[in-house]
């Protein structure tokens, strides 16, 4: 009995236990970067995720999500081919981009902030992602936007025409499991 109780206690300490688990029904993972004064947009596909989220149990909420680095798409095929090379995403060595939450805090009702680790091109850096989580009767919308410095991850070199800062836009429609 004591063993069972211990297991229950341990499980309760794990993120996601007793939480709402969500699967991704539809997703948009995009980025924007200023190139020669023009806002260039792109997307990633191939999202794989594990999301546990309950606004009343944030300490036990969390997520990990990854995208296929080779799915980068800016609408210009040859540019995408270049982005996949070693100077940028180096998809042969680093095929997956992963983000994992460490802690989630509530800022306002439906507005949260996740402290995360972004694993990109072999570099792991802390990022903070403000996001909203709106629960509807049949689905939930999770939306987050944050900025990152591509130089921190050696995504290309310093450039006079390409900005260092990249805006990341995440939009997910989730269904509760």
């Amino acid at each position: 009995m004591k063993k069972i109780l211990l297991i229950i206690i341990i499980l309760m300490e794990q993120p996601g236990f007793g939480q709402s688990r969500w699967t991704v029904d539809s997703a948009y993972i995009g980025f924007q970067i200023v190139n020669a004064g023009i806002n260039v947009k792109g997307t990633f596909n191939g999202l794989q995720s594990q999301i546990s989220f309950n606004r009343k149990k944030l300490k036990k909420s969390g997520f990990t999500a990854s995208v296929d680095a080779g799915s980068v798409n800016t609408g210009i095929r040859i540019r995408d081919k270049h982005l996949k090379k070693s100077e940028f995403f180096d998809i042969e060595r680093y095929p997956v981009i992963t983000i994992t939450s460490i802690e989630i805090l509530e800022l306002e009702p439906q507005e949260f902030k996740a402290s995360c680790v972004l694993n990109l091109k072999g570099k792991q850096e802390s990022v903070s992602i403000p996001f909203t989580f709106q629960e509807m009767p049949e689905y939930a919308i999770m939306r987050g936007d944050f900025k990152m410095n591509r130089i921190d991850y050696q995504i290309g070199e310093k450039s006079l025409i390409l900005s260092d800062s990249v805006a990341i836009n995440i939009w997910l429609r989730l269904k509760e499991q």
Partner: protein
Amino acid sequence: MLAVLVCGFKCYIEGMSLLRWNRSILPILTGVLGVIAIWSFRTGLVNIPKTWDIEAIEKAHLDPPDTTVKVVFAPEEYYNSLPEHIIYKTYPVYAKPYEPPGYLDSLRQLEPEIVFDINKISTQEDWIKAGEQVFFWPPNASDENRVFNGDHLDSAYLAGSGDPITKDGIYPFAKYVITEKGQISYGDLSCATCHTRVTDEGTVIIGAQGNHAFDAGFGYIMEKYKIPVDVVNMGVYQLVGTPWFPDSKSLVFSRNAEELIEDLKARPLGVMSRQGMGYQLPLSVPSLIGIKDIKYLDNTGLMRHQGPADLMRYAALNQGMDMLTSYNGYIPLGIDNFTKLPTSDEWDNPFGYHPKRYSDAQLYALTQYIYSLEPPENPYQFAQELIKRGEQIFLEQGCVTCHTPPLYTSNQLTPVDGFEPPERHLENHDIFNVSVETDPRTSLTTRRGTGYYKIPSLRGVWFKGPFFHNGELATLEDIFDQRRLNDDYVPTGYKPSNVTTKAVKGHDFGMDLPTDDKAALITFLKTL
């Protein structure tokens, strides 16, 4: 030099124990230095680089993509043993129907006049003027070279070859030379032969992508004079053969005269055979205007260009020395089965070059002239709104990444399909490491091959064309025509004579833009 003198002078003054002399000596020495500086400027004292410096050439010259292929340049002793060109005054050649009556007789009355004399060069302006003489000097002009003496420039030739002439009837690709009173030589193969463009209005743009009907003209002459193909084939192979590609030889020697003539005539103006290119891989002639800012020379980025010295070496190579370079043991002008350098007596260049070289001063002057070339005034008048829209599309489409203002090139090389840049190239060269998927053969299978193409500058694109490495596309509009990617496309520029259709692939940017946006983009490009 002035900086060194001032620095040395300052150190000397600081070391003097009798500092009190400073006040009296300083103004005097400063005055002397000033006089020296002014004198240096006025006399154009320049440190003329040494052209044939093998170490420097090897450093600037990119290797072939096949690293087993060894390129060995002619030794310095050999180069230095060649006599220097003596550059005489040259005279216009008229197309025969436009030649003023008695013109040649009037030339026969003239004394020969040497126009390049280093002792008469004292200012930068003098260097540029002297360089102009070098630019127009036809290195194959000699007393022996009177095969045609301009007589071939009749109406039938002009119509048959499409060779353009100026509104005054001048044929600007050749010059008459007088090296002996009473004797006129017809000469070409100067820099101006390939880098002179005659506009539709009959004006001339010096240094531009030339439009001399080099190949079509030769095809016409071959046909007219019934020159046997066997006589021509070996010369063609010397010109464009790549010995480490067996197909290269069979391609050249399998053609009969009709096929060769047909292919020569298929080369549009602005596209020509060139030594080191491949058979049926003619060259889209580059423009020299603005080249001072360009870091690599040749479509394949064959040589780095970091200043006049590199351009001098490039010019020396392209005006004959590359034909004396050993490509994996094959010397295009070599004797003993193309394995040894010829002596002057053994020299047998099928293209008219003589066993001579330019002096370092001549080549330096040439670089100063080329650097001084300016684009002509743009005759196009477009609505500002349309230009702005085109510029916005240029930015949105990411053109700016490679064709970066203000040069409208990033001055980088892009690898071709089939070539992976080694790490040392990525470290030592300016490489934008993605192929734009154009036809890689020029850079993989020719003597000028490097595994790369240079990102061309779009400046002055309004007076250039045909486009792409082998001049397959006649206009900017054709570049953005999606149909060119299909196998049933009929190239609007050079189309090998043995095919009826041919896809012109690669650089497929902006293909699916709406028609209006394409027009705006092209408008913007024509303003550069």
